[in-house]
């Protein structure tokens, strides 16, 4: 598999949220606006990149029996780094995402890529895999967040689409809207996957 394919597979063909159905908890929970989705996606990308690099570097040093606990410690460390850095330098983003950052530890996407990819492949491939998967995740969350924001608040990235009208279809801001929106996006991505395959 070429590195280009390795990179682009996360966007549509193996999109973590809509095709692999990984990391649904943050995908449903934080996507009340496009901005929140993008922030969460980029934070996860950073954790994924860090953990994939470290795991692929030390994969030969870690005995099989303790590899899962070791991976969890590595991932949790990166999550804490993201949390501290975000609170220090991006307090506004931290206000809206802070609650969900610790949840990246249990995001099966990060654990899944460490176990299924980084612990078997070389560092460069793992880095590219992490970037592709992370951007796919960020794309997925931004799309779902954007969809919910457009329908729920008639705005996108906080910019009003119809001046003076801010009360959209409330259901899309609430939890059920996340499931409805995700369902339609899953349909779209499966259609795109079939078309490109």
């Amino acid at each position, binding site marked *: 598999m070429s590195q280009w394919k390795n990179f682009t597979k996360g966007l549509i063909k193996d999109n973590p949220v809509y095709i692999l159905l990984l990391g649904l908890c943050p995908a449903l929970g934080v996507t*009340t606006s496009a901005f929140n989705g993008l922030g969460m996606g980029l934070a996860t990308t950073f954790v994924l990149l860090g953990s994939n690099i470290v795991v692929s570097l030390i994969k030969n040093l870690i005995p099989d029996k303790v590899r899962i606990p070791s991976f969890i410690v590595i991932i949790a*460390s990166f999550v804490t780094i993201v949390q501290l850095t975000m609170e220090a330098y991006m307090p506004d983003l931290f206000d809206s995402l802070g609650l969900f950052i610790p949840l990246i530890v249990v995001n099966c996407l990060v654990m899944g890529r460490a176990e299924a990819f980084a612990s078997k492949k070389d560092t460069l491939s793992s880095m590219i895999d992490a970037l592709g998967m992370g951007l796919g995740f960020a794309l997925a969350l931004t799309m779902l967040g954007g969809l919910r924001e457009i329908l729920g608040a008639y705005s996108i990235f906080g910019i009003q689409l119809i001046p003076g009208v801010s009360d959209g279809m409330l259901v899309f801001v609430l939890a059920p809207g996340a499931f409805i929106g995700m369902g339609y996006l899953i349909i779209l991505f499966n259609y795109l996957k079939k078309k490109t395959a």
Partner: protein
Amino acid sequence: MVLTLFLVTAAASFTLATVYNFTAEPIAQAREAKRQNAISQVVAEFDRLESKNFLPPTGGDSLEFNFAYLNNELVGIAVNTWTNRGYSGRITAMVGFYPDGRIFDVVHLQHKETPGLGDKIEKGKSDWSDQFKGLDPASANIRVTKDNGDIDAITAATITARAYCDAIQRAYDTFEKHILSQTKEKGGLEL
């Protein structure tokens, strides 16, 4: 095996300690800036702040009172108040009072209310909280109209509105008990 796991956790702890050392200062600054910003929104212009904690008469955690002075004259009191009656747990807010007890303004600090419904307590989301401006809790009834009060509730988020009123009432009760009642006896505010 045990050694490997030990080494992994030791390396992780060391890294985290380093990052913590680097970010501790900016985090403290960011939190302080947030607090200062909230205070400056709810009291008139000031050049000096003094903080003191008071226990609310209704029980529970103490409230932080920030006395704001301009040229050594008290211009307002910003009270960091809370309620546990929110729809999703605790809500904290900053309530600003004029020295005579009227409300200057109210801003929320933290909440986990429903996006699109309860989050209308936020200043940026709706002008709902503007109705507290200038109210005197001594004469006005800080409750939602459903509870025979003077505050219009938020449509579809009465519980949140009720909780916000509870937080403001707690701030006023504490203010009344520890400061207003005493200044009336002395005939002036001396702190």
